[in-house]
């Protein structure tokens, strides 16, 4: 792990080298955007697709938590000098993972189970971040991210109780999963090398991707679901 000293406040952040500041801004902006895209294109539309009031209200609460995550990252982004237009989903192209159109409840449950698992890995990597305000946001959002992934898994467990349900979950996994490993960025990334050098992140993109693929496999196998090639 890098020995980069802790940066405890936004004021201390502003005294750091420009490369450090740029690296932190990229990560905070990325999380702010991802949380907003997720809430807008998956969570909020899924309320309509949920089959019962129980599922609709639970999805509504999850959507609010995702919006709240976005606001936490956006507030920090504002403080560290990320321009507002850089966090506006009308101006920034989303990551590939957010371009899958949401068409069914099964698909949403799979997105929570496997997509939020990817988010958990990204947040885990910030739990010991050298920039303490970012570290604290990661620690604050992590329990909710874990709940969201569990929410997806729990509903998938119910869905696969019937052959028809299992087939629909498998179809959703086949459509969504191949896009997810790209979420971890390029192998040998120069940005990622800087993040680790500055103690912002812990692991390489390729380590995280391999870990994700292993954890995704162990998540779906007990459901009788297989992962397609990514």
């Amino acid at each position, binding site marked *: 792990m890098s020995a980069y000293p802790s940066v405890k406040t936004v004021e201390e952040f502003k005294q750091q080298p420009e490369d450090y500041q740029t690296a932190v801004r990229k990560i905070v902006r990325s999380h702010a955007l991802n949380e907003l895209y997720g809430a807008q294109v998956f969570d*909020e539309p899924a309320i309509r697709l949920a089959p*019962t009031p129980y599922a*609709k*209200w639970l999805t*509504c609460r999850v959507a609010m938590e995702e919006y709240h995550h976005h606001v936490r990252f956006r507030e920090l982004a504002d403080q560290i000098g990320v321009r507002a237009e850089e966090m506006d989903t009308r101006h920034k192209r989303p990551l590939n993972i957010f371009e899958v159109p949401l068409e069914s409840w099964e698909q949403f449950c799979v997105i929570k189970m496997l997509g939020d698992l990817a988010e958990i890995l990204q947040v885990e990597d910030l739990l010991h971040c050298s920039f303490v305000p970012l570290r604290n946001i990661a620690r604050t959002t992590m329990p909710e991210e874990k709940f969201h992934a569990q929410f997806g898994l729990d509903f998938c467990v119910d869905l696969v109780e019937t052959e028809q349900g299992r087939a629909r979950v498998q179809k959703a996994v086949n459509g969504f999963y191949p896009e997810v490993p790209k979420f971890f960025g390029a192998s040998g990334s120069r940005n990622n090398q800087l993040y680790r050098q500055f103690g912002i992140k812990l692991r390489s993109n390729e380590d995280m991707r391999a870990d994700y693929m292993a954890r995704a496999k162990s998540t779906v196998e007990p459901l009788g679901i297989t992962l397609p090639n990514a």
Partner: protein
Amino acid sequence: MTEAWFTALGEPLGEEERREIAGYLAGLGMHAALPIHLIKTWNQAGETCQAPSDDWWRAEEDERARLERSARLDPADPQWLALNEALHGAAAVAAARSGCADAALIRVAAGAASSAAYQARLARAAAVAGGHPFLRKYALYCGGRWPLGIYDGVFAIF
């Protein structure tokens, strides 16, 4: 006004609450004199709302869509998010007092209250008249209730 989120769950209904329910149902185009089932426990509430309630939900969604043609709210507004956190906290406290530790069910209750709060804010933003069904339902939440909806022709409330 001090809201009493989730503090009257399972308590007998008062006459004013029964009138609010009748006004709410009539405002949605439902039969105002539907039988009312008073839910007594968190488990019962969770089981009840795991049944489909499509006609009731569609009636609310139609009205929401109609109001959204004249008013829009920002789901990432910090004050709105603060209210949502307060609702989740109140649901968690109420559940804990009743020995319920089901994190999902607590979120379901919070999500229901968030949904009702959104509908009421939308109704106000659209400048509806007093007595609008979304304002009546929200008043039930503010008074400590959790209206669960219509299941098999019966209005369920906790």
